[in-house]
Each structure stands twice: as structure tokens, then as C-alpha cells.
């Protein structure tokens, strides 16, 4: 089976509330695709639709070219973690995986393999109700890996993880993608996916706002902003303003120039004979780039909440 998730034109409304509004994107194998957006943007709903759990009013969701519901033993094709707390607290972690294995015709031995893989081998026979949120996340990932699927879909797997756990999860996701799997990971905190995601699907208000590689996005968000260090602050501002740039003072000797690429800034200052000691193209963090993108799409703004 091809390791892809293809989501095309999903629409879904709960009464008058629109949850999905033409959601369209594709997840390709070999890299981690970050699925980000503010709460309520439609990330979880989209994942439930892909898994055949929720119906849509329009659109299709295919896994490896097939609708999920047509799969006989779906966990062998798609591994998913939707909600790490979705387990019976009195059942042991091992039994929680065992019933899933039985439902796919997988041997109990596979359960022990994924427990070891996720570092839960020692606690597998304890009641899952006693697990920390981090252990539950690992158990959820173990469940997703049961059928050794080519496609993985994880909803907020970083929730509740300590820094060590976050580092483990990042490495784990990268390794899974490097094996050629398609990995879709949702998060509302972009910073968690720094250095992990190769591709980015940003959603807001039920549709895709940006579908881009991480490198391109950062480059785009960083462009045309230059940090300039100069002792001749006034002269520099005058010269740059004359050619249409927006200049702001950030520190005593530091200016931020918007609307002019770095090489043009150098030319303008040289022609005007303004001295400067340092010039640097600003490089946005993934988080800044993401905030830039979703500024218009954030469903509940702080101001609205405050009102």
C-alpha cells in the first residue's frame, strides 16, 4: 500500500457551526508532516474523518488511495493516536494493546515488541489508570505501531510529556519517517515540532491556510527584515525612509528595517555614506512564521475572550 493520506474538500457542520470548510491536503511518505492550527481549527475532526469515525457532508479522505472503512485490518495500514486517555483505567496497558492486537489478528508477541519499543515493557502489566499522561502517550504510540503500519497519525502526542519525553518523541517520529512512513502529527504548539517536521499543513477555521515545506515557510517569514547596527542612527533612518523602507528603533544602536532586502540596504547606506557596523537578515523561528500565518485564522482571539 502506498503510504499517503489524501484529504480532499472535506466539509462538515454541526448545526450552524462549521467544523470543516473544504479541508484539502496530502501527506506523503518519508517525512513528518506537522498538522498545526489553533484549537478548534478542525485538526481532530479531520483525523476522525480520515479514520472513518465521523461522517462528512462532502469530500473524501483516502489512506493509501482507499477509504479507511474499506480496510479489513486497518491497524496494519494506519496507526493512530487520537486521545491517550481513552482507555479503561482498570485494564493493564498490555491488555489494552492485546485486545487491539486480537482485533487485527496480530499475535500477543507483537504487543510485547511495541511495549519494549516505547519503553513501557516494565509497566505493561500495571493498571493503565495509574499511568502518567506521558506513559499514556507512549502507550498510545505503542498502539499506533501495533500493526507496523506505513501511515501514522498522531493527535497532540506531545501533550503531557516532560522535556525528556518531548526529545524522545521527536526522535521517534523522525526515525519512523526515515523508515519511509507517512507521519502526520498535529499540534497547537509549533515549537514542539521544530527540527522534527519536514512539511507543514497549517489550518484555521476548518481549512488549510498554508501547505508548505518548513524550509520555505521560514524563508518566507524571514524575508525583507534586516537588523542593522549603526552609530549614525538618524542618517541611516533618513536614507532608508527615502527609498520606501519602514525603519524602527529597537535599541540605542540597532534598527529594524522592513520592506527592503539586505543587499539593497547595504547599497543605499553605502551610497549615502552612512557608516554601519553590522547587518543581518532576520531569521524567523518556526513559531514566529506560524504566528504570522495564523494571525487571521485564530478562532478565539484574546480580545474576544476578554470581552
Amino acid at each position, binding site marked *: 500500500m502506498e503510504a499517503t493520506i489524501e484529504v480532499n474538500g472535506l466539509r462538515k457542520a454541526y448545526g450552524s457551526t462549521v467544523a470543516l470548510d473544504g479541508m484539502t491536503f496530502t501527506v506523503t511518505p518519508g517525512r513528518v508532516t506537522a498538522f498545526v492550527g489553533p484549537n478548534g481549527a478542525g485538526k481532530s475532526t479531520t483525523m476522525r474523518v480520515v479514520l472513518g*469515525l465521523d461522517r462528512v457532508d462532502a469530500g473524501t479522505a483516502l489512506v493509501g488511495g482507499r477509504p479507511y472503512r*474499506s480496510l479489513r485490518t486497518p491497524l496494519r495500514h494506519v496507526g493512530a493516536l487520537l486521545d491517550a486517555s481513552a482507555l*479503561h483505567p*482498570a*485494564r493493564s496497558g498490555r491488555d489494552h494493546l492485546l485486545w487491539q492486537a486480537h*482485533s*487485527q489478528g496480530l499475535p500477543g508477541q507483537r504487543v510485547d515488541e511495541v511495549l519494549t519499543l516505547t519503553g513501557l515493557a516494565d509497566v505493561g502489566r500495571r493498571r493503565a489508570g495509574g499511568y502518567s499522561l506521558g506513559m499514556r502517550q507512549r502507550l498510545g504510540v505503542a498502539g499506533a505501531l501495533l500493526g507496523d503500519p506505513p501511515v501514522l497519525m498522531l493527535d497532540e502526542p506531545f501533550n503531557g510529556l516532560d522535556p525528556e519525553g518531548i526529545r524522545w518523541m521527536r526522535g521517534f517520529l523522525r526515525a519512523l519517517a526515515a523508515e519511509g512512513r507517512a507521519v502526520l502529527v498535529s499540534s497547537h504548539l509549533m515549537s514542539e515540532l521544530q527540527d522534527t517536521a519536514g512539511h507543514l499543513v497549517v489550518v484555521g477555521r476548518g481549512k488549510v491556510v498554508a501547505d508548505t515545506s518548513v524550509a520555505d515557510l521560514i524563508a518566507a517569514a524571514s524575508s525583507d527584515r534586516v537588523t542593522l547596527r549603526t552609530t549614525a542612527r538618524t542618517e541611516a533612518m533618513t536614507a532608508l525612509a527615502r527609498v520606501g523602507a519602514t525603519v524602527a528603533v529597537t535599541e540605542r544602536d540597532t534598527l529594524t528595517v522592513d520592506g527592503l532586502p539586505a543587499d539593497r540596504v547595504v547599497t543605499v547606506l553605502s551610497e549615502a555614506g552612512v557608516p554601519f557596523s553590522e547587518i543581518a537578515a532576520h531569521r524567523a523561528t518556526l513559531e514566529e512564521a506560524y504566528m504570522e500565518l495564523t494571525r487571521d485564522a485564530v478562532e478565539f482571539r484574546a480580545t474576544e475572550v476578554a470581552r
Partner: protein
Amino acid sequence: MIGLVRAELTKFRSVRGWLVGCGIAVVLMVLLAVVAAAGTDARVGGPGARAELPRASDGTPVLDGFTFLQQPLAGDGTLTVRVASLTGVALRPPTPDEPVPTEREEATPEPWAKAGLIIKDGTTPGSPYAAVMVTGSHGVRLQHDFIHDLAGPADARWLRLVRRGGTVTAYASTDGAAWTTVGSAPLATGEMSAGIFVATPPHQEYEQFVGGTSVVGGGAIATGTFDNLTGPGGDWTMVDVGADDSPNRPEGTSTRTGDTFVLRGGGDIAPVDGGTGPKLEQTLSGGFLALTVLAVLGVLFVTTEYRRGMVRTTFAATPSRVRVLAAKSVVLGGVTFAVGLVAATAALLVGTAIRGDNAYPADALTQVRIVVGTAALIAVATVLALAIGTILRRGAGAVAAVVVLITLPYILSAAAVLPAATADWVLRITPAAAFAVQQTVPEWPQVDQAYTPAFGFFPLPAWGGFAVLCAWTALALAIAAALLRRRDA
């Protein structure tokens, strides 16, 4: 599907609380059997002591007492008589001031008062016989071996019994000229007693209303007037068969005026009703408790998945939700059937061991039927609970629905809280109808008594009541399946 069943079985066995629940169901059932058996202990030797009663050929305890005017009948022969009249009086219940009951001014016979011809193997109570008779309000009947009853013409007054070899054939006629055959009954050859008889069951009025029951009753005396009597020949002698000192059993008398004979007396020739005495199914009276505990498990088996969101994991693993429902039903039905079988068997054995066989008799097949039936009742009711839990998705609401549908109707009916007529209907239309699988006492068409749920008589037969439960379960499963297909998980 096998993998799916294994998955659901793993789910069930891996929650310890559910296994404990199964154990509690067994314990409750045995506990109630002990209570029920101990409760009947006080009756040993009293009216509940069935062992002293004569028995029909199949072991049914019977009453065999009547006023008998008889001649010996060596081999084949014919008896004919006209029953000129059959009247009755009801006796007031005896009081300390009035130990011998006085007669009430009522001339209507009891519906099952009997006057007619009988051929009987001696005059010992319980011996085989064949009889044709006029009854108070059930027309002409041919009866033999206490448990067999065949209706004849409603208005005939002339009766005839013909004995040929091992068969007795009964005839009836309105004018003594044109005879119709009522039927025939087997009866051994050899010398027997033959003649005319009179008997009448005591008078009983039973009422059950919200808040109480009322029973009015007392002895009765029937008077039969006979003429045109022809028999095998010889002297007519009167025997008061099965006479006792009970105030409800007045002394039988016989007088002859020319060719007219008048017989007077009480007693009855009929099976004993099983309603009032100890019954074998009382050892299984904890069934409703076990059922309730297991039905709660049935509800939780699905509603906890909804509550925890685990149902998404389940349906992601198996997109065909109807198959999941089927697997859950199979696992739950199988497990609770096994638990019910263990509980019912243990309860029956423990109850019987404590009480002895001081109960209305039930043959081995009936015992198997009530034990397996109780297990099946519990299993199907638990699957019904599962379906209701799937429909409602909320544990509390589903448990309430199960109690209102199954447990309450049974308790209210069996404990005589509801009026008898209402109880009868409740046990026809609610899933509680399936408790009919526990009934051991038979209903006799030829015996009048309160055939109400309070006395252990269900309005539907065992299979019929069980079918009502199955219909409810099938309907609930169909609704649950339709909702599962339509709903977002």
C-alpha cells in the same frame, strides 16, 4: 470475526471489577436459594407436605376423595345413569364457636363439582380410574388418571361407561336414546369397583389489587340426584373414598328412594394445585438479582467505552461497527450464560439440599429446563442491556431502563404488588415475560385456582415468554446497529 470475539473477550476479562461482578451474581443467587429453602422449612409437615398425598401415574400429587356408590365389576360391562340434578352449597369457614360449619344459602354448584359414573381399581385413594361426569359449569367430561380431562357435550344428562378389555369408552346423551361418544381411556383389566359418585372442590374466591390480596374460601357440598341407573348387578354399597376429619370435608351420604339415588359429599378427584405450596423454582428466585447485576455489566461493557472515548479506538480498529456489536453480544451472551448456568445449578442443588424434596414435583427434564432457561434468560437480558447501553451511550440511563423494563415488572408481578390482571399483562409484554422459563407448576384446566404470577403461574408458556424477551432484544439490537451506522463515533 474470531479475532473480534477474542478482542472483546480480552476486554471483558481484563477488567477485574467485571469478573467480580460475575462472582457476585453467583453468590447472590445461591444466597437467595438458601433463604428461600430455609423459609419453607417451617412448613414441613403442614399443608406443604406433598409426600403424603396420592400420586397420579406421572407423580403429580392428587386429591382423591368422593362419595361412591359402587358394585364390583369383574370384567367387561356397561354402566348407564341419568344425572337428574347437581346442586351445591358452600360452607362457612369454621370458627371456634362453631366448629361444624353451617351451610350457606347458595344452591349453585362449584364449577368443577362432579356427579357421574366411575370405574376404579378399588377404593384406595390414588388408584387408577376412568370416569364420565356432569360438572357444575363445564359440561360433560371424561377424566382418568387425575391429570387427563376431555370435554364432552355441554348439556347432556345421560351418561354411559362401557368397559371392553383394557379400554373404557364414555358416551353422553340428552335423551337416553341418541348417544354420542365422548372418548375413551385406558384402564387395566381385572376386578374393579363401578358405580356413581359425587365430589366437589372447596369454594375459593381470590382477589389481588394494589396494596393487598383477599382470599375467601371454605368447604362445599355437592348433591347429585341420579335415576335410570343400570350397573353390572349386585348390591349397591356406599364408600366415602379418602375421607378425613377436615372440616372442609363433610361426611358423604347416600339415600335411595325407589330408583332415585341421592349422593351428597365433598372432596375432589383432581391434581393438587402447585400454586400455594413450595415450588422448585423458588430455589432460583435469586435469578432476578443475578440478572440485574449482570445486566449492569452488560450496560457498562459498552457505555464505559463511550465515557472514556475508547469507542473511537474500537471503531478505528474495526470500522464495521455492527460487527463490533455482534462480537460484544456473543462475548457477553456467552460469558453470562456460563455464569448463569453455574449460578442456577448451584442454587438449585443448594436449595434442594437444604429443603429436601418438599416441593411440588418437577421431573428431570423440567429441572434442566428451568436451570438452562434461567441461564438463557440472564444471557439474553444482558445482551438486551448491552443494546440499550449502545443506544443511550450513558450508563445511568441505560441501567435505569433495564431495571424498569426487566427487574421491576418481575418483582411487582411476582410479589403480588400489581393487581392480578395488570400483572398478567405486564408479564406478557415486558421482557420480564421470560421469567416464565422458571415455572414448574402446571396449570390444570380441570382445576379452578388463582393462576396468577403471585402463585408462580405466568400468562405465557416458557418458550413464549422467552420469545418475548428475544423479540425485545432483537429490536433493541436493530436500533443500536442502525444508530451505530449513522452516528459519529
